[in-house]
């Protein structure tokens, strides 16, 4: 990371709400360490209204980024103040410079070489501890994060997916990682149990023959030239015994209820029979067995009455 106050011939872009980055190179540059002179350049200017402001920048490829801050000052309007840069809250060495009041404004400019994960982050320009603009530099984030775990079974296979939003740029490719206790280990597709299917915006990891050890966090990484932002999905592998327990419990409840209802009915009809003191056993049987609704039924009941 090098800071230099180089006045290079650059185009000043107006402040816009768009987060799209105009990249001057077309192809990906995968190598992380590239000489500063060959990196494309980009300028972002922000005029501060108020005390602080946050600007988000989405970067796909390594760039030479020039950040310009303009502040209108406070009531004092001192002719000279100190301005400096922070990266992730820490002072950027050699960044403290005197800032002159020009045309009722203070201007501070910093040039940064942003080419990998460590160089991405939160860059802030500070005016004499009074005003501050934060520039959040990041690669496109994966939006759709699934909070609840995917539940699957031993011996079964499962599919874990990651999707990049349609509004975001497409990654170069996708990688999958598995937590190995201390670090993330990349999953290689060639091994028999894992299958990776990449589809531009969508990636699917298929895991076959699951075991309990396969439970845990799986990370999908969208590969861009500048960095690989990640999202995680939790996988939980359980045995068939887990759902079987509530299944059997409800089964028992159903059997008990059905038996209770039918028994109650039997005792009720027996009570009726003994109370009436009529050989009504046959009638009860015919009532409980058949319920003829058609005309076939009516003649028989008529016959009984007759």
């Amino acid at each position, binding site marked *: 990371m090098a800071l230099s106050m180089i006045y290079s011939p650059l185009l000043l872009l107006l402040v816009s709400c768009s987060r799209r980055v105009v990249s001057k190179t077309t192809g990906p540059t995968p190598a992380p360490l590239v000489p500063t002179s060959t990196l494309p350049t980009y300028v972002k200017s922000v005029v501060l209204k108020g005390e602080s402001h946050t600007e988000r920048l989405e970067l796909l490829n390594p760039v030479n980024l020039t950040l310009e801050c303009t502040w209108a000052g406070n009531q004092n309007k001192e002719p000279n103040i100190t301005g400096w840069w922070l990266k992730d809250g820490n002072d950027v060495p050699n960044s403290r410079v005197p800032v002159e009041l020009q045309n009722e404004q203070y201007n501070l400019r910093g040039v940064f070489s942003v080419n990998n994960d460590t160089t991405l982050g939160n860059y802030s320009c500070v005016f004499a501890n009074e005003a501050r603009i934060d520039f959040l530099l990041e690669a496109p984030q994966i939006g759709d994060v699934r909070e609840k775990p995917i539940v699957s079974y031993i011996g079964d296979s499962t599919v874990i997916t990651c999707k990049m939003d349609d509004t975001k740029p497409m990654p170069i490719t996708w990688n999958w990682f598995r937590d190995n206790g201390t670090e993330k280990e990349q999953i290689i597709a060639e091994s028999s149990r894992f299958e990776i299917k990449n589809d531009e915006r969508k990636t699917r990891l298929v895991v076959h023959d699951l075991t309990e050890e396969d439970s845990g966090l799986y990370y999908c990484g969208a590969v861009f030239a500048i960095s690989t932002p990640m999202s995680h999905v939790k996988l939980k592998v359980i045995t068939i015994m887990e*759902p079987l327990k509530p299944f059997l419990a*409800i089964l028992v409840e159903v059997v008990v209820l059905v038996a209770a209802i039918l028994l109650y009915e039997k005792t009720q009809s027996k009570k009726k029979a003994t109370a009436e003191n009529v050989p009504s056993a046959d009638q009860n049987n015919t009532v409980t067995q058949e319920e003829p*609704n058609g005309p076939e039924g009516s003649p028989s*009941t008529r016959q009984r009455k007759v």
Partner: protein
Amino acid sequence: MSPAAASNLDYTPPDGGWGWAVVFASFISIGFSYAFPKSLTIFFKEIQEYFSVSYSDIAWISSVMLASMYAGGPISSILVNRYGSRPVVMAGGLMVCAGMVLASFGTSIIHLYLCVGVIGGVGLAFNLQPALTIISTYFQAKRPLANGLAMTGSPVLLSTLAPLNQFLFDSFGWRGSFLILGSIVLNCCVAGALMRPVNKLVKPKPDIELSKRNGEEVEGIGKQPDAHLSVDKENSCQRCLYRFIDFSLFKHRGFLIYLVGNVAMFFGFFAPVVFLAPYAKDLGIDEYSAAFLLSIFALVDMFIRPATGLIGNTKWVRPRIQYFFSFAVLYNGVCHLLCPLATGYTGLVVYSVFFGSAFGMLSALLFEVLMDLVGAPRFSTAVGLVTIIECGPVLLGPPLSGALVDIFGDYKYMYYACGVMMLVPGIYFFIMHYYNYKKLEEEHRKSADVEKRTSDEAVTLNANQDDQPVNE
């Protein structure tokens, strides 16, 4: 052959007592039949990922299940006519359970079509028909109320199953959930156990007023002596036919009115429910608020159904309940036609409330009016025929409406179409039932005259006979 047989039953339905337990049992059965297919949609996204198929392939599961449920109607009717409600419902419960358990071990999407779709669907058909039929055997005077209460099972169980399914899915994945749902649906067997066949030994109460109040068709009186004679004539062919499917229903005026109107109406019945949330999202409302609209709809539906039953039971409405049904259909149509006027979230909330009440009113009366038209003995067969014929519009309705939305790119045309599809049958019902009631009154008067004449003749005959021995 007394006019009391005009109630079409040669016994007095209890209208209470164990009947309320039967209403509860029907509540459960009907609830599962309607709510179960809808609640399964929560699992579709995951199953779609698992089997790597398109969404329309997955949506077929619902369609197959619904189609099987409606197509299984006649089989269900035959079995109920033969064996009564209880065994059929218990068999149905076991079938759905078996289907779900088998599906939880499924290895392909075809496997799911067969287990969940076909076996599950037919099992649910074995729940729906008998549940409706047994209410008609237990209730006469309080039947609209009983029907309204039983039909409330659908929204109540849907409101219960939807969050339950979500919870099961988060805890056990789709396979475990199917397994547990299989056991939950086994509670239909408990409902079946409650469906004790009604005691038919109670003597009928001679009550001409009762039959007049119910406005029931008098053709039944004519039918009873025919049935009696046919047995004597040993017309085995006719008996065979009556045992299975009563095709003579197609000559029944009331049944035909109901059938034609319903087939037209069902094209526009379910689509607005299906498209409520997507329409809301299309208007820019966020997903949770759109889902909340459906909850409002279900809540209003839940309370309107028993209320409709109560209203249908009052002495002002009961004799002319067909008009009440026609009004409900019209109300639905008007609701949909006015929907495009609703702008913003508040407008849609108001629409959901009105639509919920319209939908509930219609659902509560849907089978009550059929019972009213054909009478309890033939209801089982009638409902079987009605469901299999309604299968077409029920399945075609939502996709056709979806096509309308796609063609015009705007939901309002679909709502206009659905509104018209309900308004026209509503008006049709009003006119046809006015005609039908007039005809029924005519027939009733004619048969009452015939009765009076025969009883007068009998009196004079007896008087002559009494005179003769005195003379001798």
